């Protein structure tokens, strides 16, 4: 693997302000501990990749930031999770407002069974925007941002389910962008896509990272190396709880890992 050429995309993001922070966070599903004592700081306007073997709690980890784990019965969080320094598990936090600021794109593209237009309009409508002119503006902007406008500008009224997989995923990104979030969580957004569609999404992420804070869970080492600025390597311990092994700038983590386990993983010796 020619890491150095792949890594040419990475930005140095050391100076960026911290957008999200976890401090000694543990997550439990009932009696099962899914995450143990995770502390890290995620810089704003950058792409942070979460990598690690299956079942090590990567998805559970990013779902901390929009409190999607709340939907799971028996899920408990210990420790502190902060957005712009505000603890988001505080009882005074409005989860709906939080999810507006921290959007999420899922593993399997999940466009709603309605038109392209209505998919993107869904969020804004729920947040009280109903003027058609205003909605049209938002939809045009979001689809442009998601690099989907040229593909769908003539079929806004068509069912979103008629789009290709890659287009559907970009539509889901547009749907998130339409509510003007600050953070976009991506849970293996390319795992259901072909390589061409995958590269399109990665380009898109690079563009979006100029404005948004992006966290991406990925199984694909190349993707993490190509597309991210910071990387966090998670692993399972004996009791299957996920722990953070190593976290740092992607270029360092991939060329000069400090932990033996990180090195073994990224060089393909396990996982």
């Amino acid at each position, binding site marked *: 693997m020619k890491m150095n050429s792949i890594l040419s995309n990475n930005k140095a993001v050391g100076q960026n302000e911290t957008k999200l922070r976890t401090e000694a966070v543990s997550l439990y599903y009932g009696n099962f501990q899914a995450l143990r004592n995770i502390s890290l700081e995620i810089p704003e306007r950058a792409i942070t990749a979460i990598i690690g073997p299956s079942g090590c709690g990567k998805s559970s980890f990013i779902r901390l930031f929009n409190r999607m784990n709340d939907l799971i019965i028996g899920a408990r969080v210990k420790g502190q999770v902060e957005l712009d320094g505000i603890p988001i598990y505080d009882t005074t936090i409005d989860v*709906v407002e939080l*999810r507006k600021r921290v959007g999420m794109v899922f593993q399997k593209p999940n466009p*709603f069974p309605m038109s392209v237009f209505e998919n993107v309009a*869904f*969020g804004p409508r*729920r*947040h009280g925007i109903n003027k058609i002119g205003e909605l049209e503006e938002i939809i045009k902007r979001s689809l442009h941002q998601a690099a989907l406008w040229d593909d769908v500008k003539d079929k806004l009224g068509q069912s979103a*389910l008629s789009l290709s997989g890659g287009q559907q995923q970009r539509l889901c990104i547009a749907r998130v962008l339409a509510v003007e979030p600050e953070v976009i969580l991506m849970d293996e957004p390319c795992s259901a896509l072909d390589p061409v569609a995958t590269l399109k999404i990665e380009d898109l992420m690079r563009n979006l990272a100029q404005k948004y804070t992006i966290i991406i869970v990925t199984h694909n080492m190349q993707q993490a190396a190509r597309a991210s600025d910071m990387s966090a390597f998670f692993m399972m311990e004996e009791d299957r709880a996920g722990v953070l092994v190593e976290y740092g700038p992607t270029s360092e983590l991939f060329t000069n890992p400090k932990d033996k386990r990180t090195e073994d993983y990224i060089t393909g010796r396990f996982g």
Partner: protein
Amino acid sequence: MRAGAISKRQLSQRTAFSLLIIATIIVIVPVLVIVLQIIINGASAISWEFLTQEPSQAGKAGGILPAIVGTFYLMLGTIVFALPLGVMAGIYLTEYAKENWFTRSINLAIINLAGVPSIVYGLFGLGVFVLLFHFGMSLLSASLTLACQALAMTVTTSREAILAVPREYREGSLAIGATRWQTIRHLVLPQALPGIITGAVLAMSRAAGETAPILVVGAAFLLPGLPQSPFDQFMALPYHLYTVAAHVPGMPKSTVWGVALVLLVVVLSFNVLATIIRLRARQRRFNA
């Protein structure tokens, strides 16, 4: 590979398939015979007058319009009460209720609701709606009684239709800051609607066929004119069929079959309607 072993296996396979086919034929034969018999015997009684006139001579002459109208009123009255309640309970049970003893006992109650004999619903309706609430022997009492019986069905079908909406849709909606209620109202319910309506239509067709419960809460054999208000008594097809078949001496046989035919057509057409709604919804989902 030994030829003997294979032929033995094939033999047992053929025997099994033959038995299954025979069983299937036995299952559908009674349905076909009933339907054919009713059509053959009843068709001659069907005429414009039969469908649009009021009965005379204790039902031996004239038509059955009041019974047809009464049955439609009853279906309408049943669904007006059973559908909103059923959908709301279905939403609560799928989307909001926590898994605890309370929810479990509600679920158990709903399952058992479907198993209560219909005459027991009738007696319940008599006690509660007719006597306690003073609605009297009336269309209203009968609709409420049948609605109680239909609830088991509308709750169950609503719940299944809501559960069938993929979790991914809900997550996608919640993840962009929609509230749970907005997610249900704008995403889940529109998706579940065909299933809910199918259940409602089937509940209506079942209400149309019920005889025992309405017997004690407001159905009458012969009434002059059509019901004018929900507090009036009414005629209904199944009860009319029962009386003309069993209690009127000298009743022309073709009239009895004719009433049965009309009832059958009403019930079956609602079942067909339910099937069409379901098929169209499925098609829309695949072609979308």
